[in-house]
């Protein structure tokens, strides 16, 4: 126990003397969490600009325009002709344009099908897909209004005409993110990734500096020649600090950014603890392969995006190529995010996700074994 406490004190001294480690391990998590989180403060986008060319200029076309403009998603930018609207799209001023042809009202009144045209710039997915679904909904609603008016004219009462207009109604229920906003979806995962990346880079760089400054043998001696005490003593500080950060994110950041934890805190604490322990071990293992802390920092900068992208959070796991799935399975982040999202977003429990919990535990044990072997090798060489 004394050896572990000595290593803990030694680690505390190391971090307090090393400004780069101090910055990445103690300042960056909070700074990043607020900085990245604030992007999604409004959760979703609103008022996506859509150019509109109304060549009909009638009551019906104006009604359609008003319906589009009254949705929170769309802001209509009037244009006099198609080339002007196109130019606005090319300049990035609008995300697409909506063209109402001449005689829209005339066609509808004479029971002929009227055409409207939507052109979208899909070089960015979110605005174009939001515009597409909103405009489709508005056109279907206006179309249903036309049908209802027709049935009313046929002598049907309100109730009958409504049933005839829409005999099969679709009741859409997006669970766990009822507004289907990008921010509500991304924020919990993003905060978890921030926690992971700062811990991974900090721990790896910290371990590399032991090698760089040729202190590994000294550390081994302080631990009473026990590799497990060495790992435990070095890791315990990071474990507690990052558990506190995890708690801080779950209480403060989630409340600031309006994220609700639907599951239980004990479940969340349990899975976060296993995850943090795994990342600490992984960080030490990665750090043991570098000889210079500076170089470790430079290389590990590139790990954030690839790790996030293969976890199945942004692109479903099923849609990743087999080779990437294998790589994803080797990272603690993938099973953790599955359980964490289930607990935070859907109100799931650890028991609902036993497969992923076991997966994470297996990774923890395997990484620990690899790290012990690696340290044994390094110490024998030191």
């Amino acid at each position, binding site marked *: 126990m004394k050896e572990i406490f000595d290593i803990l004190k030694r680690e505390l001294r190391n971090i307090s003397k090393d400004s780069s480690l101090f910055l990445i391990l103690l300042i960056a998590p909070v700074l990043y969490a607020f900085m990245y989180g604030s992007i999604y403060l409004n959760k979703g986008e609103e008022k996506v600009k859509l150019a509109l060319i109304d060549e009909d200029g009638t009551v019906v076309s104006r009604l359609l325009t008003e319906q589009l403009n009254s949705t929170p998603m769309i802001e209509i930018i009037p244009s006099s002709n198609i080339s002007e609207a196109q130019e606005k799209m090319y300049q990035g001023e609008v995300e697409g344009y909506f063209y109402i042809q001449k005689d829209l009202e005339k066609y509808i009144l004479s029971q002929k099908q009227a055409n409207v045209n939507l052109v979208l710039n899909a070089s960015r997915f979110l605005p174009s897909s939001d515009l597409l679904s909103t405009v489709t909904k508005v056109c279907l609603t206006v179309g249903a209004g036309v049908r209802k008016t027709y049935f009313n004219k046929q002598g049907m009462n309100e109730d009958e005409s409504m049933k005839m207009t829409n005999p099969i109604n679709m009741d859409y229920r997006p669970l766990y993110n009822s507004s289907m906003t990008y921010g509500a979806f991304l924020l919990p995962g993003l905060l978890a990734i921030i926690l992971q990346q700062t811990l991974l880079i900090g721990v790896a760089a910290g371990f590399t500096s032991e090698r760089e400054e040729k202190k590994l043998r000294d550390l081994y001696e302080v631990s009473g020649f026990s590799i497990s005490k060495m790992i435990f003593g070095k890791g315990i500080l990071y474990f507690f600090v990052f558990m506190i950060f995890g708690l801080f994110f779950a209480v403060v950041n989630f409340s600031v950014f309006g994220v609700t934890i639907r599951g239980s805190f004990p479940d969340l604490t349990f899975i976060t603890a296993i995850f943090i322990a795994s990342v600490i071990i992984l960080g030490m293992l990665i750090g043991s392969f570098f000889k210079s802390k500076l170089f470790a920092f430079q290389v590990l900068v590139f790990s954030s995006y690839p790790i996030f992208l293969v976890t199945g959070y942004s692109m479903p796991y099923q849609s990743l190529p087999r*080779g990437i799935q294998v790589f994803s399975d080797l990272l603690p982040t993938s099973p953790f995010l599955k359980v964490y999202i289930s607990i935070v977003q859907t109100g799931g429990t650890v028991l609902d996700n036993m497969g992923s919990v076991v997966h994470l535990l297996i990774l923890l044990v395997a990484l620990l074994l690899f790290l012990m072997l690696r340290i044994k090798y390094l110490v024998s060489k030191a």
Partner: protein
Amino acid sequence: MVREWKRIFSIPNFYVVLLVIPPIIFLFYGFIYQKQFARELPMAVWDEDRSSVSRTLTDMMEQNENIHFTNVVFSNAEIEKLMKEGKIFGAVHFPKNMESDAKKNHQSNITLYTNGAYLVPAKMIYKGAAEIIIKAGLAVVLQKAEKQGMPADKANTLVQPIKLNTTVLYNPEFNYQMYLTPGLVTVGLQMALIVASVLILNLEFKKNTIGSLLRISTSSSQIVIGKMLAHLCITWLLFILISFVVFPVFDLGKPQTDFSFFVLYTLLALACIGIGMMLSAISDNLLFVVDVALFFTSPAFVFSGFTFPRWAMPWYDQVYADIMPYTHFLDGFIKLYFMELPIGYAFPEMIRLCVFIGITFPVAVVVFQKKINQYLKNIQH
């Protein structure tokens, strides 16, 4: 310039970051999205109607490329449980007597559930299922109208009085590889350039090679320009890698945009090298400058507005996005590469990148000249 090339190819802090990591991550980014779309997403069906209509609708949904029914359930609770276990991304419920209600002119509700905690699959399932459910509803209207003796063309018009024709430009199928890979590749590139260039000047002091550098020239502007040109040549090698290897491998190549992409790319490279050299001139603490580079480059992708539009961010995040060269590069890149517009459309973005270049290099020259003078003064004493 030649001396700097030798340094780039001999110091791991340069050659690994500039020449080894980029090809690996660029190919990795392409490979992640090799399947291009999120398809065959697991979904459950809860069929209380058990009629030919509900079975037909289930079959039609199964035929949709986004949907794959993996579970049959019998309650709301089962749907929620499967979602909590991460086994399904969506579910559809056909109510009891749906078919007979439709025949009796009674309205019925088909409920579509999605797991909004996973936005991409939820949207894909909605897209696939909603289209079929809406069409089914309209088909019932059509049948009824025809039964009442309405001519077929009039009945068709009644079903869809306003026809929406949609043209989706630049990525009509919403292909993820086409959308994300070019963006991720270019953001990886700006990361590599800044993370390497923050060590261009200060590493000379750290490695005690400043003396040999000053024997070539004691003019800071000559040193900065020479080193900048050496790094620019390396970025052109990376351009060849991106445009003629990575993009063609993943069918992302657009030869007609190569020239305009090259011009914009060169400006981004200069802006990144400029930022790096400025930091390198200001601070001799190598770890600190790499920390700053890490802090500055990592958020570039999310702040650029590529996945979440900038106008939806709070104003202070929009300001922060503006001080990153990648934001302006991306705006121009979308116009030139994705939209294949003439180079003139990206002039505003190019001017903004020139502002970065116009500020950072002079600062680097002035600060580094002071350091050179100080160093020479110290030697003389």
